[in-house]
């Protein structure tokens, strides 16, 4: 307490000058505190490492390789070879891993490693965009339904029930038949569908808890409007949970994409699911062929599992930050 009294005089001016920078400092401090909790969760850290490895591979390694090794690769002087789309005439495709193709080539003569790396940023994009849309919609609807209750609440909750019971994959199959579904459209559809679904129910119940706490009434007594209360009091308090669900939704989106690509329903150039689809339609994932041509499906399959798992693990780690009860003493 002694040093507090000493700083009274001089820090009054400091405070009055820039409350903004203090806010930034507070945010940074909160981040550090939460990071301390998160970093103690092994499962969360494993997830984070895996995600970082994929991110580095997709966003840094691929552009470098594409600019150097794969750019000038020419089979003969005439034809330049694009490892993602081109056909390597020098091999019997699909070819097993070699120095020229570290993870071999697929039936269409394309480099498997290059396809894998090329797809990585797109998988990230899909997962994060879909999850963001989900969380924004879910948070808004969940808090609004919780706060106003009554008919609004009933409407959105019944809608959520319908969306939850909705046959998700068949619907996407129908949609992809009706229109050209590219990656961004897919992210939008997945985001919208899961935004109106299960996440709103979870965030609404959290919102109901927050709504009943006295600081809400305290704001009302001061004359706060409904919008003010939702934005300033309810949303900041459900945010941690929203963020947590965002991680789980990334997993869901990447998974859905893989399934749809595997059925060949998407209009996209390349993805991990599409790689398996290519191998499958060419008849290499049948019977004993599976293990003879492992490089056709194992790298992409493992990537899907790893990245989905990693986001899920991060979610589990964040769960310990959000729910203090889960923390080990």
């Amino acid at each position: 307490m002694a040093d507090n009294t000493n700083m009274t005089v001089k820090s009054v001016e400091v405070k009055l000058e820039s409350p903004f920078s203090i806010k930034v400092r507070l945010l940074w401090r909160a981040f550090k505190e939460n990071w301390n909790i998160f970093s103690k969760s092994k499962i969360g850290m494993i997830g984070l490492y895996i995600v970082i490895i994929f991110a580095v591979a997709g966003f840094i390694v691929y552009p470098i390789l594409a600019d150097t090794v794969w750019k000038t690769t020419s089979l003969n002087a005439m034809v330049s070879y694009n490892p993602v789309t081109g056909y390597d005439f020098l091999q019997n495709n699909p070819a097993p891993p070699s120095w020229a193709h570290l993870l071999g080539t697929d039936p269409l003569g394309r480099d498997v490693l290059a396809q894998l790396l090329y797809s990585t940023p797109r998988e990230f994009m899909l997962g994060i965009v879909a999850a963001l849309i989900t969380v924004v919609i879910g948070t808004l609807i969940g808090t609004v339904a919780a706060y106003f209750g009554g008919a609004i609440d009933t409407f959105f909750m019944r809608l959520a029930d319908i969306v939850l019971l909705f046959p998700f994959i068949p619907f996407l199959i129908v949609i992809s038949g009706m229109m050209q579904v590219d990656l961004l459209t897919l992210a939008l559809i997945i985001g919208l569908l899961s935004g109106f679904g299960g996440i709103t129910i979870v965030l609404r119940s959290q919102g109901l808890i927050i709504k009943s706490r006295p600081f809400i009434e305290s704001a009302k007594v001061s004359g706060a409007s409904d919008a003010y209360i939702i934005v300033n009091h309810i949303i900041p308090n459900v945010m941690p949970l929203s963020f947590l669900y965002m991680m789980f939704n990334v997993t869901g989106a990447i998974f859905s994409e893989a399934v749809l690509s595997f059925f060949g329903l998407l209009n996209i150039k390349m993805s991990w699911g599409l790689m398996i689809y290519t191998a499958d339609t060419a008849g290499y994932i049948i019977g004993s062929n599976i293990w003879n041509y492992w490089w056709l499906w194992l790298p992409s399959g493992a990537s899907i599992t790893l990245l989905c798992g990693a986001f899920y693990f991060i979610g589990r780690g964040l769960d310990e930050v959000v729910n203090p009860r889960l923390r080990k003493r």
Partner: protein
Amino acid sequence: MPNNEVVMKIENLDKFFPMKKSVFSRAKHFLHAVDKINFEIKRGKVLSLVGESGCGKTTTGKTLLKLYEPTGGKINFLGRDVTHLMNADDKKWFHSKTQMIFQDPFESLNPRKTIFDIVSEPMNIQNFETLKKRELMVMEILKRVGISPPDAFLWRYPHELSGGQRQRVAIARALVMKPEFVVADEPTSMLDVSIRTQVMKLMMELIREMNMSFLYITHDLAVARYMADEISVMYLGRMVEYANSEELINNPLHPYTKALISAVPVPDPEFKRKSVEIKGGIGKPIDPLPRCRFYDRCPFAMEICSQKEPELIEVGENHKVACFLYEQR
């Protein structure tokens, strides 16, 4: 300022809660939480509402501050009818002059806001003065409630403060805009004994300093006696007795008030209290019959008590009681 000016006056205030099963069904039963309550509070005076849990004292306080829409009756604040606030200007005027202090200092402060945000929120909502002026006012009120030095606390979060400090912050928040009328809902019942006395004394000082009118809600008659000029005892939504606090403590008339006073433990081992004579437990005022609500438990119940409801009648100077025992006189 004229000192006998009536600040808050309510006439026949009702608040019924419908007991509904779902949004679509119409309520058949009503909980009469507040039933025809009348009182007025003059400037600088403290009225205490006393009663057991479920007697409607908190509902009365919240209805006065428009947290609940009154079912019937009139609320008059500073000479203006505020029963139903319709336009934005009236709302702004009313909410900038009334405030509430809550029971639980752990719950009434938003855990995600800093002390500065919490205390300045009423001014932010009302768009009161300039930012710089607000900062000075926050510092001033924090210092006044004993949070000192204030700038050492401005950027802390509620969980970093002790229970007593939190309740001081809650008081600072309520009083920062110098309201004319404050409802305090058991503000000291969650605090430790030694802190409780500090906070009670602080509130007494502030009431005198700012010449505020207070509605002090408590279950503890001893606290009411210390804090209030007048005490009103409530039972199942009805006001059963009303008098100056010394008069009510020393000369209780209603059988329920008598029971309530004799049930309070006395910090004197040599004093032997008379035991409470009333039987049974407190019920719920759902569709109450037109008879005295204390009838089932009253040791003096007469035939007339089961036939109609007693009205508050004046039996002495500023002493009113709702009981047929005193009606003949």
